[in-house]
């Protein structure tokens, strides 16, 4: 990987980490008590990387962010959660991006919905119970809003910061 690309990935990873930490300081759950509800600011970086760079770089940034994030403030359970949600979201977005009828907004909403589904699946695996499934419908409805917000912000970002040429 050329040094320029490597540096860009490193900077974006740092930005994603900073956004997750910032989001953790003011969780959306204070306003609306729904376990697992997040705005998903770090997803801005994933969407930007997916559109402006490549799927491979988006994946590398995502993996680095999840591993470093769990070292900074979490534990192994947190790592399992962020990886399940993050990978499912990235996979879904990479697939949806190939559908010409969808714009970044739809791709981002699909990613948010996939992220929440992944987290619920991880919670079901951890608890060994179907109980967390109850939280999925309200989370899916919220993901339409959070996905649209981060999608709109990402579109703005990509317009303002054109993709690098190399």
């Amino acid at each position, binding site marked *: 990987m050329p040094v320029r690309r490597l540096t860009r990935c490193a900077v974006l990873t740092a930005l994603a980490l900073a956004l997750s930490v910032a989001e953790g300081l003011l969780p959306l759950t204070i306003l609306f008590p729904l376990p697992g509800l997040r705005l998903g600011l770090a997803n801005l970086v994933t969407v930007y990387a997916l559109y402006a760079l490549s799927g491979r770089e988006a994946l590398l940034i995502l993996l680095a962010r999840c591993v470093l994030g769990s070292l900074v403030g979490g534990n192994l359970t947190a790592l399992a959660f962020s990886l399940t949600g993050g990978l499912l979201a990235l996979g879904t977005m990479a697939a949806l991006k190939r559908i010409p009828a969808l714009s970044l907004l739809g791709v981002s909403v699909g990613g948010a919905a996939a992220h929440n589904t992944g987290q619920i699946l991880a919670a079901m695996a951890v*608890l060994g119970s179907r109980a967390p499934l109850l939280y999925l419908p309200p989370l899916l409805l919220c993901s339409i809003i959070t996905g649209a917000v981060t999608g709109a912000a990402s579109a703005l970002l990509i317009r303002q910061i054109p993709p690098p040429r190399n």
Partner: protein
Amino acid sequence: MATPVRSSGAEGLRPTPGDLVLILLVAAAAVALLFALRPHGGTEALTVRVTVDGETVAEYALADYTEAVQVAVDGVSWPLVLELSADGVRVAESDCPGGDCLRTDAIHSAGEQIICLPNKLIVSLEGASNAPASDIDAVAG
């Protein structure tokens, strides 16, 4: 029309009717799931079941608690205190990271539940009518 193969760049940034279809699909999935999991529990003769890591550690009949009583839950990684009263149960104190269980509202009817993920704890309400209640009856919180 949009080209099937999309390179990076400014393409695909403008919202399309396809986005609306996807949003409606997500909403439809949520509503269908909500309907499938809808509560059908009563608020009479409730039993609180406390499950930690898949094993039931305590059961309380709410009718016995005319005044609110706080009880500590045993066997959890982070100390947690429940408040039982005649009409429901809530998490009064918890040292778990995140504190989602604290922010979940009190539960009042059969099929509702409170989950504390770090503690692998499920507090569920079961009614007399649906004694071995399925654990997917209602949305708590």
